[in-house]
């Protein structure tokens, strides 16, 4: 079943830690946003394989609820 991981907040994409094809475990950090000088880590809600990454590291001005990583 496909899982979508979306931005929890508006902000900038500080680090993208996975790429398509990577196997991930539940709770693994997929990407980290930067907002108010804080790092906001986004974790995988499920184990699986990354099928798509939609936002590049360094991207600025993201909105909340934007699709970043898809896990198959």
């Amino acid at each position, binding site marked *: 079943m496909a899982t979508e991981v979306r931005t929890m907040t508006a902000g900038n994409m500080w680090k993208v830690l996975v790429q398509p094809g990577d196997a991930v475990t539940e709770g693994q950090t997929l990407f980290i946003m930067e907002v108010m*000088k804080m790092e906001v880590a986004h974790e995988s809600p499920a184990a699986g394989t990354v099928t798509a990454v939609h936002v590049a590291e360094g991207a600025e001005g993201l909105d909340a609820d934007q699709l970043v990583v898809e896990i198959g």
Partner: protein
Amino acid sequence: MIEVIKPGLETSVQDWPGRIGFWNQGFPPSGPMDSWSFRLANVLVGNAPGAAGLECQYLGPTLRFDADAVIAVTGADMAPKLDGVAVPLWESVAVRAGQTLALGPAKLGTRAYIAFSGGIASEPWLGSRSTFHQAGVGGIGGSALKAGHQIPLGAGTGVAGRRVKPEARPPIHGDKRWDVEVCAGPNDDWIDAAGQERFLSADWKLSGKSNRTGFRLEGPEWTFAEKAYNKGPEHGSLPSNIIDHGYPLGAINLAGQTPIILVSDGPSMGGFINPYTVPQAAFWKLGQSRPGDIYHFRLVSVERAQAMAREMKALCTEASII
């Protein structure tokens, strides 16, 4: 009493105008970044405009009420829900004991405000309940909200179903460009004519490295007047260095080539020049913008900035309620 179930990204108790009178000892006023939305939330629930409430930033909190209350949510749209039912913004709402209020990520704007009839009755410090978490003072235990915190409320007389007239609300928008008023000075004479013209015509992008201390801007290089180079050694070696002096709240502080707007939790002094100052009546625009947004600065007189503050104060009253 309210129990914090989820704290949000950095939710804090604030009051307005905050901790006034201690700037000369290094304590900033703190208080809400968007005092327009904040004050209207208080007016909706029958409080004095400056009573202590919550500032929610980017991602809001989840709160459980253990007593009946009247609340209002204003500012950014974080899609608030009471036991799963949508709560209207800019309107006073009755909450029953046992209900849970949940705010999500900001969909429009950046900072939402929650006022409670009777206000938050936390312990004041130096005359204010505002949280200044870098010094560990004010609010609940001197920090942003944490899960498990208990927030005491005062006794209120709020009434549900009161709304803010649409024309009295701050025009929070999502088009990512903001026209922000500035006053010249105190150190605009350290910038050359081309640099002054460039500052007022350029697009300045808000950096992700921005918080309630400072709003960092990215834009063109600055160029300086003769006095920035030809000065006594006590000023320091960079053109933007000046002998340590007091900073105005809202100063656009130039550290080397990086301008940082010093806001509600900012420093009171230092050794960099402040070519321009954002007046407090324009702070709501800073508070409702987000990283990647573009500021365009527009010069106004000090008299105009003071008039803006008076106009905003007149809007944050019973006259704006229907």
